């Protein structure tokens, strides 16, 4: 049962290795890759089910008991995020089979994609700060390579910028880790939680907390570290854009949530103003940036910046309602933005241009794609029937209840701006008089992948109540870091006991 925690990390790794050694056999690679993606998704489902029924699952790697060894911990948040990311990844993988050219698939596309998944799942599941750094580097280096995958000038440039800013962030991450180890003498999250909880004087800890937030802010595209995102997310191959915008930036948000709910619990009020200010500016920057774009992928990328602002804002407000809305936002944005990128890719493939000015009137020729894009637009903008609306509604309500009237007004105002630029984009691409040019039909697999995600969003809206109940359970668990610590150390005792038995 406990080995279940390892599977979402191990299956992508195994798939990556097998796809490397399959040589140049295209069919074999695609088959193994899809089976691996499916198996990862299935293991994530099983993991979430077992965490839901039996509570937090902890696996001690290599029988080195914590706080010395590395552990993988799956609580509701981790396993939920793994399920979300492996689901989006599976859809993006199916899309890639139709999208990436054969030569690329014969070369390194599939191994890199699975290594990316491995890094993301490892970052969600690890219970050790340094191990988090290692998984970050795994997911980053595969994403640098994937952004530059087709080798066009602009992709290489975007990848270079993305890599540079993230390498600096990695160095700062190491600084923060070194500082934390110097002060507390441990890097295990549960152990840190215990030791920091018992401190009288915070000492340099608020500084270290802010350093961690800056590092994770680079991944989560928090202002002022967002400027690599529009380049990288719009230049990457479309399925990779969907992965980056849908899942990868959430790793940053997840990490901030994790360290502020487990490690730095008593210090949260100290940094709250910083987080709220940065989140508010991020929202404004993202919305203004998106308004100015004519390239559809760049518009979606800027919109991701703005939406990450909302997610971090909820994190910063920190009341139970705000965290539930943040989690709902994460689910909503992951599904909708991945779907928007995938359908935008279909449109780009069909028209051969990324400029929205060169499109138009496509609703008649590709009604399903137009419908899917509309659902994504409504989801991100927060139009009532879809659950994106409830995410925004709950966030604004939480801001008002916590006495942040200005932030609530800002969030509401920028929601209207979001509505404006997204519907303007939809109208420009699908509705107005068309240019009447002949369309190049996109592969069925690409169209279908977008529709699957649109279906998931509709189903999620229908089953909103169970979803919100689940997110409330996740939030309730985040409020009890003691339970996390207990689960880890209970497992530590088990591990020590079982290694001593053979003697």
């Amino acid at each position, binding site marked *: 049962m406990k080995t279940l925690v390892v599977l979402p990390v191990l299956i992508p790794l195994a798939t990556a290795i097998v796809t490397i050694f399959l040589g140049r056999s295209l069919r074999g690679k695609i088959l193994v890759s899809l089976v691996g993606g499916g198996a990862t998704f299935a293991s994530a489902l099983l993991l979430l089910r077992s965490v839901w029924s039996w509570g937090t699952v902890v696996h001690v790697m290599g029988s080195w008991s914590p706080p*010395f060894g590395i552990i993988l911990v799956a609580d509701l948040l981790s396993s939920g995020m793994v399920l979300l990311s492996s689901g989006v990844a599976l859809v993006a993988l199916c899309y890639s089979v139709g999208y990436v050219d054969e030569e690329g698939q014969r070369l390194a596309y599939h191994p890199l994609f699975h290594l990316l998944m491995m890094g993301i799942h490892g970052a969600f599941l690890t219970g050790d700060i*340094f191990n988090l*750094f*290692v998984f970050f*580097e795994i997911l980053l*280096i595969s994403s*640098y*390579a994937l952004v*530059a995958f087709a*080798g066009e*000038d*602009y992709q*290489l*440039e*975007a*990848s*270079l*910028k993305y*890599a*540079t800013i993230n*390498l*600096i962030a*990695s*160095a*700062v991450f*190491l*600084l923060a*880790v*070194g*500082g934390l*180890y*110097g002060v507390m003498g441990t*890097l295990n999250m549960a152990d840190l939680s215990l030791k920091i909880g018992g401190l009288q004087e915070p000492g340099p800890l608020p500084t270290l907390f802010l350093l961690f937030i800056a590092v994770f802010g680079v991944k989560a595209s928090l202002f002022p570290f967002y400027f690599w995102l*529009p*380049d990288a997310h*719009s*230049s990457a191959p479309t399925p990779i854009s969907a992965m980056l915008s849908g899942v990868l930036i959430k790793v940053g948000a997840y990490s901030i949530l994790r360290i502020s709910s487990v490690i730095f619990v008593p210090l949260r009020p100290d940094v709250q103003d910083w987080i709220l200010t940065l989140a508010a500016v991020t929202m404004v920057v993202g919305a203004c940036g998106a308004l*100015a*774009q004519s390239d559809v992928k*760049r518009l979606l990328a800027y919109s991701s910046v703005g939406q990450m602002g909302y997610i971090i804002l909820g994190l910063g407000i920190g009341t139970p309602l705000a965290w539930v809305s943040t989690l709902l936002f994460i689910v909503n944005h992951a599904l909708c933005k991945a779907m928007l990128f995938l359908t935008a890719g279909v449109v780009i493939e069909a028209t051969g241009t990324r400029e929205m000015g060169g499109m138009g009137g496509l609703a008649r020729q590709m009604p399903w794609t137009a419908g899917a894009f509309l659902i994504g637009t409504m989801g991100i903008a927060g139009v009532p029937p879809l659950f994106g609306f409830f995410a925004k509604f709950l966030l604004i309500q939480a801001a008002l209840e916590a006495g942040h009237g200005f932030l609530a007004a800002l969030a509401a105002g920028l929601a209207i701006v979001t509505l404006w630029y997204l519907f303007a984009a939809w109208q420009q691409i699908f509705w107005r008089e068309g240019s009447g040019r002949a369309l190049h039909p996109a592969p069925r697999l690409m169209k279908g992948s977008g529709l699957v995600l649109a279906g998931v969003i509709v189903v999620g809206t229908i089953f909103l109540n169970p979803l919100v109940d689940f997110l409330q359970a996740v939030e309730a668990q985040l409020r009890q870091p003691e339970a996390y610590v207990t689960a880890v150390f209970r497992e530590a005792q088990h591990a020590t006991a079982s290694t001593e038995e053979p003697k």
Partner: protein
Amino acid sequence: MTTLLAITIGVLFGTGAFLVLRRNALKVIIGLSLISHGANLLLVASGGFAGNRPPIIGPGGGVYVDPLPQALVLTAIVISFGMTAFLVVLLYRLYQRTGTVDMDQIRRLRG
């Protein structure tokens, strides 16, 4: 010893930051690797680095230095080596295609 380490770390970070702000992308990469060396040194220092003491407990105990930061630094060095190698290859591809390593001339994506 700690003072010497602190000065070295400061110099590495300062030089690295200066180089990262150059327009020549190759210098940026060198600056990045200097910064990561600085970070690695700081990680070593965080374990209470003390001259000639070994990071293992010898026969009969005795003084030793905390081995964990040294293990962490090994990992971090390998990672930063890999990243630097990747960046150099990336820049070389960019140089082959554009014929320059000046970021101002390479830059196409804006806005």
